[in-house]
Structures are given as C-alpha cells and as structure tokens.
C-alpha cells in the first residue's frame, strides 16, 4: 500500500515541490556541455591564449561568439544546479543554507551576464 495520495502521484512533484525539473535540467545542460566545452578547449589550445589579438580575433567571429555565449550560459546553469545540490547536502543550518543558496544564485546570474556582455562587446564593437 502506498502512502502517496492520488493527487500527489498525478502531479509528480515530490517532497521538494518541483518534481524532476532540477534533475532533468542538470542532465540536459551536461549533454550540451560535452560538445561546447570540447570545442572551446580545442579552440583555446590551438591558439596563443596569452596574446590579446589572437583571442580577440577568435572570440569576435560571429559563430565563435554565438557558441561561446551558449557555453557561458550553459556552464552557469549547470554550475548553479550543481552547487545548489552540494549546499543542500552539506550545509544543515537553515539560515546558512538559505544565505548560501541566494549568494550562489546571485553569483551565477552575474557571471552569466558578465560573460555574455564581454562576448557581445567584442563581437559587436
């Protein structure tokens, strides 16, 4: 006999109230990051990373800028979800947990927008 109510089963949201959304987003971003990170790593290794002109020329090309923007957004998203799980698992004080989750959200959003802003500035300048 199950203690789950019929309504709970139909909604499928579980105890945290948001269902499998978090789990699913973590996997979808992971799949997207396989080609995106591999592309960026190889692109970086093929160039003079220490030289401004080399990096700027590369990242200001339209397709590079597009893929790099996708990379930044997907990294931020995946990282936010991962850090959230770690905080929820290891920080037990409710106050500290909430504060860290809010801080992590702020940092990830700020980093994502900064990354996109930097890329757009290079490619549209």
């Amino acid at each position, binding site marked *: 006999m199950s203690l789950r109510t019929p309504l709970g089963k139909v909604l499928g949201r579980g105890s945290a109230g948001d269902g499998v959304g978090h789990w699913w987003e973590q996997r979808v971003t992971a799949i997207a990051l396989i080609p995106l990170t591999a592309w960026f790593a190889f692109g970086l290794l093929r160039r003079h990373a220490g030289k401004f002109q080399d990096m700027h020329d590369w990242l200001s090309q339209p397709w590079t800028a597009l893929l790099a923007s996708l990379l930044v957004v997907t990294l931020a998203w995946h990282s936010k979800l*991962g*850090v959230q799980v770690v905080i929820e698992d290891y920080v037990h004080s409710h106050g500290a947990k909430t504060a860290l989750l809010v801080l992590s959200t702020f940092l990830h959003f700020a980093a994502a927008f900064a990354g996109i802003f930097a890329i757009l500035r290079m490619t549209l300048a």
Partner: protein
Amino acid sequence: MSLSILHRITGVALSVGFLVFVWWLMALAQGPQAYAEAVEVLRSGFFKLLLGGWAFAFIYHFCNGIRHLIWDAGVGLEKRQARRSGAIVAVATLVLFALFVWAVYCATPVTG
C-alpha cells in the same frame, strides 16, 4: 566509491574556475592593457598551479560526467560494469591530462 565524491569536488572547483573564466573574458573585452594584466596574474606560479588543477578537474568531470549520463540511461549499473567504467574513466582522465600537459608545453603556441 571515491570517484563519486571526486565528481562533486571537481564540480565545485570548476564552479570557482567558471568565475575566473568570466573574469578572463571581461579582461579580454576591456582591451589589450587589461588583458595583459590578467594574463600576468594567470601566469604567476600560484595561478599556474590552479590552472593545471582546473584542467585536471575539467577532464575528470567531463569523463565521469559521461559515465553518469550513461548510468542515467539505465545502462552499466551492475557492480562489475560500474567498476570497469570507473577504471576506464581513471585511465581516460590520466591519458587526456597527459595529452593536455604535452599540448601546453610542447605542441602548441598556448603559452606564447
């Protein structure tokens, strides 16, 4: 198993690395002067060590992440299979990291 907690540790390390990556992008967007200053910081001994650590963390998290995705598809969950895929991840990580070190120091102009 120890590979599992390593996935989390490398993940958190890479989250910090992501912030440095964005800082690097911002320096690049600001111009040659700011970029030269950022590169100087990244070339310091301490940061060189960190960058090597992030490269290792990325390679491991990448390989073991693929292993997790395969598990999520319901494949390879038997103990024997999981041990074997763990060994494959360990070997792949070491080989790719060795290739990375070789690429940075010998093959490409990355440090130029």
